[in-house]
């Protein structure tokens, strides 16, 4: 565990202002290079053959005709990859087992979902590669499949993995963590995780009001507009250069090295500009295939997924079934809470079970809690993280039941949440005792917000919901060089996942040095330039990237002070750094003119050489984030269509380094939540095939679906970041599903328990009631 970095209150020059983002011009002129924009000399084009079946045994694969086609340079199947033993490592916010990862990138014994990769080809053109794919003959033995999480949990469900036995773990707050006895019958339930705090049974007996309901959320896709892409070049001496649009080039390198049994040092991953990820670009899909094809063909190989492949084969979000039971006293205090979250994980285990169970009730201070989570496999693509992975699945249920309780007890929906809100010192059921947090502040500001006072008309309703995310730090590195003119180049290992972290990190470095932020250029280093970085996920980019950038700056400032001391022939203790200058600490030191950063940089050769600073750190102290959202809707009773009239977000950012980019994260996350609530879902046919793998039938919100999203940024500093930063990216997607369902309930009196709240479903409920 490395040291925490404390928050210091100070007068700020740059932080909190809104400079223009350094990547802006490249992005508005088409210069920015994303994954599919990379081309290497002599490159081949790779294509993947994918399973048309949800579940089938691969009896044989005949690649001879494909191989014989003119222009085809390599054809690969699972035979070109070593089998891997069962070994679990963290990947992004999820964990992965390499036995499964190698089977996910290329099916071995069985195909486990529609879209599962079976073979891949590299050829001199895309059209030849596609022709070759069609010449590969695969003989399948079709097996019974299971898509829905509830069906997959049944005793007689078709089994995806005959060797999987449910592993259970019970974590009692203040007590032991115990393993449940291993079941003797294989199951699609990979894991059961239980948290216990207090005694729910006696608390429910004492409750004045008990409500229990079961909710269902649908897996949705992250929907990044940039499809996955990888360009790999394997050279004759066994070195790999890999371009990938990823949230974690170091973990991509680690996974490829492991899957291909290569030295880590032989793989260099260069991250391209990222065209959206939201958690979905933490994992390997094309990368190991492109490297293997390039190894065989001895030429660079470029692979780009089609949108159809993105939907069928890259991770949708987790989702599932959530049972919620709350017990409240007469005043509305929640005294007991019970939940069971059955999370679908796709074809391999590793759903964000911890995150779903941990976030389930944690916004509230509740004495007696039990949360059970199940990690369940079924014949769908393996889930990937998606913005606060797991949290919306639980929150849809919990926030709906709290709303119902508030209505039954005639308490304002914000007041009931204020009454139960977690605060500094609240003991969570998963072990953490909260430091200073800003949840109550978001609720109180939401209550006072002008949008909360607007009178509603007929068929209109207002809903409230809240969200919590714990945030993470993890391994992070930065290297900072002071250029000879006094400008600064910072290389970081976190990816600018779109939020503008390059701008925010430059602002923090500029604040440390006391110079303008346009004198600081932040770029993302490739894997050969920096120490390991964890994936940029869990809202750690500006938090953890910020801490290492600030510490690298402080390292370089110390060196600048040394150089000034050398120039003046005084002790370093007699030099201070203020507003971009080294100054004598007092008039007693001597009558020295202050030295600017550029003075010191210009002289650096004479005082010892180039000036740099760096930091490599397992960053701790991520501050939990909380937010409250208010949504006003109007329901069209003739069509069942739900229109969002107003959407208000009040969320604690700790400190908004660049307020416009904080607003952008809040607004973007909320609109993804609106999509999840109203339209988005994976639709499977009875044959187990995905029926809507395209943006026409999988409908993400468009500009005309949403209003302006009103934002109020609350700032309760994180005590463990030098400028008080909390991660902000996850929370905005959590409240919308329940807030919208609660608003619809307010408008038409119907309580929905399943998503999406699409016009046919809402209309059917209106007719039914």
């Amino acid at each position: 565990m490395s040291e925490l970095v404390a928050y210091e209150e100070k007068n700020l020059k740059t932080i909190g202002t809104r400079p223009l983002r350094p990547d802006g011009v490249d992005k508005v002129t088409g210069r920015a290079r994303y994954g599919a924009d990379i081309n290497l000399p002599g490159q081949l084009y790779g294509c993947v053959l994918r399973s048309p079946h949800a579940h089938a045994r691969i009896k044989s694969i005949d690649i001879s005709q494909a191989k014989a086609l003119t222009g085809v340079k390599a054809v690969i199947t699972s035979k070109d990859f070593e089998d891997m033993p069962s070994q679990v490592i963290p990947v992004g916010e999820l964990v992965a087992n390499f036995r499964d990862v190698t089977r996910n990138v290329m099916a071995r014994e069985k195909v486990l979902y529609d879209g599962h990769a079976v073979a891949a080809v590299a050829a001199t053109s895309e059209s030849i590669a596609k022709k070759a794919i069609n010449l590969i003959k695969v003989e399948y033995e079709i097996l019974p499949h299971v898509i829905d999480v509830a069906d997959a949990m049944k005793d007689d469900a078709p089994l995806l993995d005959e060797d999987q036995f449910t592993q259970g773990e019970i974590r009692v707050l203040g007590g032991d963590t115990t393993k449940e006895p291993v079941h003797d019958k294989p199951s699609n339930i990979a894991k059961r995780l239980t948290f216990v705090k207090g005694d729910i049974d006696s608390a429910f007996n004492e409750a004045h009001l008990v409500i229990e309901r079961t909710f269902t959320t649908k897996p949705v896709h992250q929907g990044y507009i940039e499809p996955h892409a990888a360009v790999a070049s394997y050279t004759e001496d066994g070195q790999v250069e890999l371009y990938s649009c990823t949230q974690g080039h170091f973990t991509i390198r680690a996974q490829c090295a492991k899957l291909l049994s290569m030295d880590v040092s032989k793989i260099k991953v260069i991250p391209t500009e990222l065209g959206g990820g939201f958690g979905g670009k933490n994992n390997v899909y094309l990368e190991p295939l492109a490297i293997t094809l390039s190894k065989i063909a001895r030429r660079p190989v470029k692979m780009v997924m089609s949108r159809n492949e993105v939907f069928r084969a890259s991770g949708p979000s987790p989702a599932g079934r959530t049972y919620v039971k709350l017990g409240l006293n007469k005043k509305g205090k929640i005294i007991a809470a019970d939940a069971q979250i059955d999370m679908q994980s796709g074809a391999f285990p590793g759903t964000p079970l911890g995150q779903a169970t941990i976030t389930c009730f944690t916004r509230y201070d509740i004495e007696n809690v039990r949360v059970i989570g199940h990690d369940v496999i079924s014949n769908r693509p393996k889930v990937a993280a998606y913005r606060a992975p797991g949290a919306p699945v639980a929150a849809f249920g919990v926030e709906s039941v709290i709303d119902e309780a508030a209505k039954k007890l005639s308490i304002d929906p914000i007041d009931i949440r204020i009454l139960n809100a977690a605060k500094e010192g609240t003991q969570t059921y998963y072990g953490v005792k909260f430091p200073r947090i800003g949840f109550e502040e978001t609720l109180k500001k939401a209550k006072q917000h002008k949008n909360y006072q607007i009178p509603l008309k007929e068929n209109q309703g207002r809903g409230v919901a809240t969200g919590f995310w714990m945030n993470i730090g993890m391994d992070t590195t930065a290297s900072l060089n002071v250029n000879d003119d006094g400008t600064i180049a910072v290389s970081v290992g976190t990816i600018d996942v779109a939020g503008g972290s390059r701008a925010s990190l430059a602002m923090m470095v500029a604040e440390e040095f006391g110079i303008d932020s346009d004198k600081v250029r932040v770029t993302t280093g490739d894997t050969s330039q920096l120490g390991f970085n964890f994936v940029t996920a869990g809202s750690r980019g500006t938090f953890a990237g910020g801490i290492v950038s600030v510490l690298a700056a402080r390292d370089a400032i110390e060196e600048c002070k040394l150089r000034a001391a050398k120039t003046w022939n005084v002790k370093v203790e007699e030099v201070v750094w203020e507003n971009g200058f080294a100054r004598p600490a007092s008039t007693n030191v001597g009558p020295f003119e202050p030295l600017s950063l550029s003075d010191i940089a210009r002289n650096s050769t004479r005082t010892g050489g180039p000036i740099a600073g760096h930091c490599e750190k397992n960053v701790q102290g991520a501050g939990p984030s909380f937010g409250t959202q208010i949504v006003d809707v109007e329901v069209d009773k003739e069509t069942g269509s739900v229109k969002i009239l107003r959407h208000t977000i009040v969320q604690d950012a700790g400190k908004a380094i660049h307020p416009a980019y904080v607003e952008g994260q809040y607004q973007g996350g909320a609109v993804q939540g609106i999509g999840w609530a109203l339209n988005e879902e994976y639709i499977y046919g009875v044959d187990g095939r995905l029926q809507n793998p395209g943006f026409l039938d999988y409908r993400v919100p468009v500009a005309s679906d949403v209003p302006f999203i009103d934002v109020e940024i609350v700032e309760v500093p994180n005590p463990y970041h030098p400028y008080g930063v909390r991660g902000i990216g996850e929370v905005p997607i959590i409240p919308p599903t329940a807030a919208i369902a609660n608003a619809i309930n307010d408008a038409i009196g119907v309580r929905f328990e399943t998503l999406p709240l699409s016009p046919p479903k809402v209309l059917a409920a209106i007719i039914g009631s």
Partner: protein
Amino acid sequence: MARKHVQTTINGDECDFLCESNETLLSVIRNQLRLTGTKEGCSTGDCGACSVMLDSRLVCSCLTLAVEAEGKVIETIEGMSEDGNLHILQRKFIEHAALQCGICTPGFLIAAKALLERNPNPTETEVRYWLAGNLCRCTGYHKIVEAVMDAAAEMRG
């Protein structure tokens, strides 16, 4: 199959290329002409990332055959700034933080420019419906709509 010879003007420059008769304009723009600012998000005309102007008409280049460009004028994002100056829309997108990851940005800018050429004073609703063919997954559209309306106001003077 013999490849077709196509003569066009792209971003003010004469340009000719050879293409398959079933090849899309998007494929030629990106893969042959290496103008990679035009993006492929879906290849089915649903996301708008590949938007270009063809004889002053807004089209999805993924749904346009390259041979259809014969004798026509193509404008892509690479031709939007003039003489080293960003177009007002480009500037407003940066000023309003109307882009995050930026993959949809070229398509939005081309579509927004087409809107303002037809309707210099659009309402918020008109902006939202015109841009409904362009998907953005990062911004929630708030700052994009603001940027387009602000650009329209500045262009009206």
